[in-house]
């Protein structure tokens, strides 16, 4: 069992309680009040409330969730689909797993609210294949909902509100977390992102109008509907309201997940994890999962919300905070990062397929002490060839961390080239 140190907020308040996963305990803690209130409103009102709440998608891109719901076509007879993205694969991110394991009914209630708001009749929860326990938890919760007539036909006695929920296990690929890669995979095809337009709201799962939201995004919705926009906006910043589950990992004393308002200073977030291990000095922090550019100790007081992080050339992403202390070889970091993206590129677009592999080879060459000044030039040029030129944002995600490492830790790279070896004794063999 995962012990969750509850800090503040609402999502993880009852996560230490095993029973919170059952319908009776969930209802006793106020569960399904949000759905009840939503069903008393017109769907358009629900969308408007979500829009004004300003809940930003928690999957990494941070787009206004209510706005996304409003993109669903209204004047159509075609069935509409909701997809809940539980393919959490970003290295450094593990918040969705916790929500699935400890608060599955929060997610399901959020899905039901969204289904009412956009008029969806089918919802798929796509969960990465390695997440056996989350899959089990959600399957159990969905079964309980069907038994209680909280999904299926005429949900909560509301005539004509029919929604089926299907838990779908992925087969393990980072790119299936990209929303159109996910849709391809859901349809049984190779997980490769689609060209956009058309966007999923026009042509989504099985060609039907579709909205895709992250696990955590759905989990926030019941609280917004139940407790109101003003209450929700009491957490976080003007542009990034609400709390989130920051996942702190790496060189800290107590890695873990901490629910805190958006905009909490980075220093405080790391503080909840007990600070840098062994009293060592901080060297760098990746603020939002591995695809986000790295921050330096100078940025330690930045408020952890996207509008502040983007001023520093990075993003909140999924809120996966990876802490690195002074013993870290940043070239080694570049090797690990570039290996991951080389391995996970779907291989459609030229720049991403070829560029990720090339960057990885160059980084490994430098780490092994065989790098040259031309390699430094290539590490500037190749990410630039990839950025912003492909079907999906994966190439950006592969290019940005390398650009960030080169920007802030160029000395580490130069030292490898100068000394023809890795200057960090603790940096292990490739």
């Amino acid at each position, binding site marked *: 069992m995962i012990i969750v140190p509850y800090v503040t907020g609402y999502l993880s308040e009852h996560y230490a309680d095993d029973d919170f996963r059952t319908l009776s305990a969930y209802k006793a803690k106020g569960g399904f009040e949000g759905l009840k209130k939503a069903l008393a409103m017109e769907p358009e009102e629900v969308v408007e409330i979500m829009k004004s709440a300003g809940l930003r998608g928690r999957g990494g891109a941070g787009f206004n969730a209510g706005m996304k719901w409003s993109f669903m076509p209204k004047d159509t007879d075609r069935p509409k689909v909701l997809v809940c993205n539980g393919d959490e694969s970003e290295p450094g991110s593990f918040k969705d797993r916790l929500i699935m394991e400890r608060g599955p009914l929060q997610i399901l209630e959020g899905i039901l609210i969204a289904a009412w708001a956009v008029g969806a009749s089918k919802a798929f929860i796509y969960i990465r294949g390695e997440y056996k326990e989350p899959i089990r938890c959600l399957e159990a919760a969905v079964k309980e909902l069907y038994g209680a007539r909280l999904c299926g036909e005429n949900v909560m006695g509301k005539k004509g509100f029919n929604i089926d929920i299907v838990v779908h296990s992925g087969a393990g690929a980072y790119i299936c977390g990209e929303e159109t890669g996910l849709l391809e995979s859901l349809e049984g095809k190779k997980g490769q992102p689609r060209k956009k337009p058309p966007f999923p709201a026009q042509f989504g799962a099985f060609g039907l109008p579709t909205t895709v939201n992250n696990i955590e995004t759905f989990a926030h919705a019941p609280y917004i509907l139940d407790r109101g926009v003003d209450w929700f906006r009491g957490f976080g910043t003007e542009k990034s309201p609400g709390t989130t589950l920051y996942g702190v990992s790496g060189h800290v004393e107590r890695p873990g997940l901490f629910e805190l308002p958006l905009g909490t200073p980075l220093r405080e977030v790391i503080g909840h994890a007990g600070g840098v291990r062994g009293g060592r000095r901080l060297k760098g922090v990746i603020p939002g999962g591995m695809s986000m550019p790295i921050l330096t100790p100078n940025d330690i007081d930045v408020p952890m919300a996207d509008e502040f992080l983007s001023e520093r050339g990075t993003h909140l992403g999924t809120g996966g905070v990876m802490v690195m202390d002074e013993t870290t070889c940043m070239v080694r970091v570049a090797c690990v990062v570039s290996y991951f993206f080389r391995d996970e590129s779907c291989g459609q677009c030229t720049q991403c397929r070829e560029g990720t*592999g090339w960057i990885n080879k160059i980084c490994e060459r430098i780490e092994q002490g065989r790098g040259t000044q031309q390699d430094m030039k290539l590490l500037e040029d190749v990410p630039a060839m990839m950025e912003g030129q*492909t079907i999906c944002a994966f190439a950006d995600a592969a290019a940005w961390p390398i650009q960030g490492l080169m920007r802030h830790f160029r000395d580490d790279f130069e030292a490898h080239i100068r000394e023809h070896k890795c200057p960090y004794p603790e940096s292990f063999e490739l």
Partner: protein
Amino acid sequence: MVTITIDGKEYEVAERRTILQAIDDLGLLMTEVDIPHYCFHPKLAVDGSCRLCQVEVEGLPKLQIACDTPVRDGMIVKTANQRVKDARKGVMELLLINHPLDCPICDQAGECKLQDYSFDYGIESARTQEPRRPAKKNADLGPTIVFDQERCILCRRCVRFCREVPKTGELGVFHRGDESVLELFPGTQLDNPYSMNVADICPVGALTTKDFRFKIRVWFLDDQESVCDQCSNGCNIYASRSNNKVYRYLPRRNDAVNDTWICDHGRMSYKQILENRLTEPGIKGQRDVGYRDAIQEAGRLIREARTSSRRIVGVASPYASNEDLFTFRKLLEALGAGPGTFAVQRGEADDVLIKAEKAPNANGARALGFEESYESVGAADVAIVLGHTTTAEYFRDVANLILIDTHVSSLMDQAAVVLPARVTAEKEGTFTNHANRVQRFLPVVEPKFEAWSDGDLLQQIASASGLGGWDSMYSVHEISKELTESIAAFADLQLGSLDDQGRELS
């Protein structure tokens, strides 16, 4: 229609098309508007993955792929500024990091888009020191195609072709990232009636046909327009020739007939130009007679039949051109022999290109008044026969058979006179396809022995028969003129006025 501006020049294009499609519709892609591309093919679904066709569209912050960006009225596109050039250079450099630089031993050299675009848009020297990704060499994909995996740039044209055109879907891209490889699906072979088209659409030397591979360097070849004569579809082709020899047929684009495809059977039919040809004239089984003697003998037989008012019949061939058939019709009229007949073999058809009628010009024969018949011609003194489709059975009761044919056949033994004729690739003319589209074909090679077109032989026979008005020979262009003036359906379809796309009968 909408107006778009590309590099300062305005173009009227159709709505609901992408930039590349719209420019391709105008026939200007890579002739006037240079937007290099690999994965885009005008007859396949848009893929959008090679990213080479990126252009700048005013008002949009990122570069856009021209293959998938819909045109808008007033859209301003830039295809040649520094930003676009840099992006192309990037794509070209990345495509080459895993591609062998062995053009001198690659069979695609000379018609390779990677080679061409590298010269036009690429980098001067390689910046890689890593070995190329290991890959299969000379892999057998099936009866027709060989695959050099290391040369593949993963544009997936072949994958989409197999899915969309023959709908057989044998090929796929497997694995991920820089380990992605084109492969056959397990347990399949690339063995469909259109398989060899993948070699045409492969922009590099990855897919080549077993038939053409390493036969000749392509810069020794020149391409002559022709029409395939293997069924009534009349697919437009190029015949690639060198030193009076045809090395291959390639599809020639005609959106009304065959898009950019031909079937494998049609493609391989170039071999019929040399195989099993009827090379010598003959009189009653005697093979060493001269051309002149054989024609004189045919003329004598016809003269005698006419003198004694015995029956003469004509049997045409659906392989003969409109012009040759018109000459035949005129000859039969002059002999008072009544309308000729013809027969056409039928076989399997599909809904892609292959038609049931296994000859190019059955509709031409119909339009020129020949009657389709599958019965014996009955008792006759002389039958003048354009060969290829009829059998000995038809001529059970014929005393003297005058056979004009291109290939060795069982009819030869029965014939009083045998005259070798030219095949399609050795003459000029037109065919009328299944949809009544009249299409021209040009001479590709000269026969390696003395042979004449059906029409020329018929003119000479007419002259030898002593018919008035047949003493001077008319060229195929003169005959075409007379044909189009005298038969209403062929009006405006004169050989010299037809372009390379053909036109329908009126």
